[in-house]
């Protein structure tokens, strides 16, 4: 057991005779901001599901926060934070109620929940909207709140699945500052995104094509390797090289 936040070796998942994830191997160090990129259908979602303990691998191994994904999926679920674009908060509850709900789910004592609720609401500037339904909040506020809730139980690693989709450019960047802050205090961030400029914000990133990892390294390394100026160009070169329809 090492102290890598995420460790995958030959991680594979097959569905019938279709191989969605084909023996991927990579590591994410503690406190790193790791970008996990790939086109739709490249296998990203399946890989994340395996890492978060939601799906059993067909072969290979992986550990998250020191727990084996195959034998300790429940321990994993307890020690990670998760936020996806599709599901984060309950729209028909207030921010306060959402925080209380998740605090309870993560098993935090009630006094602790109260303390963190106040702290969180103040830091996000949501005190005035604390008791309004989440459905009425602007998208940007929802994203930020969802992220904070994912961190409520102070996990070692947080998985963010396209967290900034559709959000305005200012809020997007404010969101990334929150990610940086979390990373600075030791939380590892595992992020997927369709915004290529956000890929540049990561310490290291990987790009999946057709179930395999086609690129792994810092943004600078990848750009140099492919002789291009932006991660988008790296992406385009890798994606074009792949088989199948576009």
């Amino acid at each position, binding site marked *: 057991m090492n102290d890598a936040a995420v460790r995958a070796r030959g991680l594979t998942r097959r569905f019938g005779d279709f191989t969605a994830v084909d023996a991927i191997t990579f590591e994410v160090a503690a406190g790193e901001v790791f970008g996990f990129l790939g*086109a*739709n*259908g490249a296998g990203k979602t399946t890989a994340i599901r395996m890492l978060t303990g939601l799906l059993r691998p067909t072969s290979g191994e992986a550990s998250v926060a020191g727990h084996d994904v195959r034998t300790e999926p429940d321990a994993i679920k307890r020690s990670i934070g998760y936020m996806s674009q599709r599901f984060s908060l309950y729209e028909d509850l207030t921010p306060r109620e959402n925080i209380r709900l998740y605090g309870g789910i993560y098993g935090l004592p009630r006094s602790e929940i109260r303390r963190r609720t106040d702290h969180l609401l103040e830091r996000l500037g949501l005190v005035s909207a604390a008791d309004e339904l989440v459905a009425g909040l*602007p*998208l940007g506020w929802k994203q930020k709140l969802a992220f904070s809730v994912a961190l409520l139980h102070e996990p070692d690693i947080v998985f963010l699945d396209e967290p900034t*989709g*559709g*959000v*305005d*450019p*200012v*809020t997007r*960047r404010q969101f*990334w*500052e929150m990610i*940086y*802050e979390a*990373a*600075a205090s030791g939380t590892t961030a595992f992020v997927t995104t*369709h915004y*290529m*400029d956000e890929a*540049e*914000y990561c310490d290291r990133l990987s790009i999946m094509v057709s179930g395999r990892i086609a690129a792994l390294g810092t*943004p*600078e390394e990848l750009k140099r390797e492919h002789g291009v100026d*932006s*991660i*988008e160009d790296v*992406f*385009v070169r890798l*994606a*074009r090289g792949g088989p*199948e*329809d*576009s």
Partner: protein
Amino acid sequence: MKTDVVVRDLVRTFDDTTALAGVSFEVAAGELFGFIGPDGAGKTTLFRILATLMAPDRGSAEVLGYDVVDDMWALRRRVGYMPGRFSLYPDLSVLENLSFFASVFGTTVARQYDRIAPIYRQIEPFAARRAGALSGGMKQKLALSCALVHEPEILFLDEPTTGVDAVSRREFWDMLQGLRDDGLTIVVSTPYMDEADRCDRVALLDGGRILRIDAPAALGRTYGRPLLAVRGGDRYRLLKALRELPHTASVYPFGASLHYTDARADAAPEALAVELRDALAAAGFADADVRPIEPDIEDVFMALMGAAA
């Protein structure tokens, strides 16, 4: 110069949200016109009104000379529309979808083949495949083919590239420019700022209001303040250090670098670069790379958002 779209003071609210708070603009015939803005800006509501799917609360909109409310049926024959999410039939094949939409407009795929060929040819090999089994990029091409099959005089495409990978997005915009070159008027919306460069003119939309309308190149000129790109060292620490400086108007991460805007509108960019480099070196960032840059659409958008707030 013929105007295909004329919108005046359009207002639309839902319960207590104001989706459009008084929008006015014009689109010339044969133009590739883009609406850039994040979710909730009002893009979908605007497009639905222009496609006669919704009536505005106040204001007026004319497309091809027809009023969107009073001349609804005349417009529905002439407009090509692609809504924000995939809205074709996943259990029908590519060809079946296309034939259906052709028949609804009283025509056939065969009759329209030459017109839609530039786009349709790319997915023709998959004509028998079920639409639900297509990749994101191919779905968009199919949707575009279906929108074109009845020879519309104008196209309204609501976020056609959302959720599609970077390669397909590029290809899609190539196709749009090709259609524009053939004389079709196209009105597109997108949350991706970099796609704005592909349009003839762009309207920046946020919170139900238009912040500015102009050609992409011209937009940068309205920035009004010096803009510098800064790189080097720990990004997060660099960000905080820059924010501490006395004349900082804003600092935002932009890809690999940070965009620093200085509050002194008249300052010479080159001199500022030197000043900044020195200040950063003093703060412990010895190898900071500082250079003046031209603002792109995203810079402009964010500055306008801040000003409007």
